[in-house]
């Protein structure tokens, strides 16, 4: 089983969710984060002091999937999150050793 972690532009979140639903992904967990990278932040003005804010808002999506669905899922994310402009984000794949569904105590792929 794999955990797919995608950092995407927040306003693309709904598109990504739809795309994932279409390929049959049943669940995901999303957090608000601030990203730092090639994408420039913005300047802010405060009573005559102009300063640079380097962090830009991003959404972090975590999706646990069975091994054979990884490729398809990654493709769906890339297709739906991409704007072609700098700051579109990253996808990371990590290994999950085990998973439980708290409600039923099920483990393994059926817990997803």
């Amino acid at each position, binding site marked *: 089983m794999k955990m797919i972690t995608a950092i995407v532009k927040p306003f693309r979140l709904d598109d990504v969710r739809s795309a994932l639903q279409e390929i049959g992904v049943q669940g995901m967990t999303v957090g608000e984060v601030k990203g730092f990278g090639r994408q420039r932040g913005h300047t*802010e*003005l*405060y*009573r*005559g*002091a102009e300063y640079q*804010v380097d962090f830009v808002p991003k959404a972090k999506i975590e999706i646990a999937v069975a091994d054979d669905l990884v490729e398809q899922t990654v493709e769906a994310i890339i297709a739906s999150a991409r704007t072609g402009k700098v700051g579109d984000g990253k996808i990371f794949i990590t290994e999950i050793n085990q998973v439980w569904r708290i409600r039923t105590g099920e483990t393994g792929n059926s817990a997803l």
Partner: protein
Amino acid sequence: MNIRTNFLLLAVLLPGSARAAGELDSGDTAWMLTSTALVLFMTLPGLALFYSGLVRNRNVLSVMMQCFAIACAASVLWVLVGYTLVFGDGSSLGGLTGGFGKALLAGVAADSVSGTIPETVFVMFQMTFAIITPALIVGAFAERVRFAPMLVFSLAWLLLVYVPVAHWVWGGGWLAERGFMDFAGGAVVHINAGVAALVAALLVGNRSGFPTTQMPPHNLPWTVAGACMLWVGWFGFNAGSAVASDGAAGMAMLVTHLGAATGSLAWMTAEWVKYGKPSVLGIATGMVAGLGTITPASGFVGPGGAIVIGLTAGFVCFFATLTLKQKLHIDDSLDVFPVHGVGGMLGILLTAVFVSSSYGGMGLPEGVSIAQQLGVQALGMVATIAWCGGITFVLLKAINLVMPLRVTRDQETEGLDLVLHEERGYEI
């Protein structure tokens, strides 16, 4: 010449004041009751919102607490001795203050009349000025001072700085006698608060991290809401200073409003030109600058004068703010000096010009030229700066010996809300 002490005089000069002084007028009373509510509204919630939105998340409550506690404690002090030392008959302490006859409001009964309004209302109206002036100062040392010394300072300052200056200007003291013009508190309120703020910022020292770390406001809509309340409340501040519901009050409201509007537009323009974009904090700050500056002039000038004063205020206070914070690196955190102090000085001086009937004002006293009046205004300004600066300095030094003004660096990092008040602003 001063509206508060001289309303008898003005009653003759101004429209609608056909009422005899000493006889209560229900309309004047209604307006002064309302004005009192409006000026309290300026501090609570107005200023409390304006200031607390500008600090960081973790200090939002500490600023509100300062405004609130000052309002409460200053009210009691005003009733005990403040009122009598400003407006009491006769004088004490060698003319520095008024007499002690009305200490504890002795003799102020429900049927006491002051001009055409109940004396209780006059006491209350003036009290709201004694509340807001020390509350303005806290912007200078926001996010780093301890609560107890702050409160001690505010009360002592009220007694030793505000009270004497108010007596000189409004209580029939030496500046009033010289014809110093300060309709609603350019010197008494704004220069006083501004100068005290500057001294306090220097003595307390910069916030840790200033100026390298950015400290953006944590809630700008909140600040803008507070600014709007200040604007509305200021109608009570300035038009209420006519102590009557008449043409003088009406004109004061009109010029006050124009000062606010043009101060805003000027600051907005300055930012637009300099940075390419106007900001909402900018326009709101320009409004405060315009209002602070029109305050001393508000009973004396006409609409044209008000527009010039407001525009000047916006530009001058804009550059004063830049200079102090960005150039001199003085952490008067919420810009009390460049906005209120500089605005108050500007207003005090410009009053001498625009009171002149040649410039659409109510007119200078018989035989007084603009230059002469300017001299009087400058004198009053310098006297206020000197007195306020000196006493504030000594006071803060003295208090700091007994009870340190600043929290520790760790406490500053953790935030005053938790450290001083065991509370957090938001759980959203």
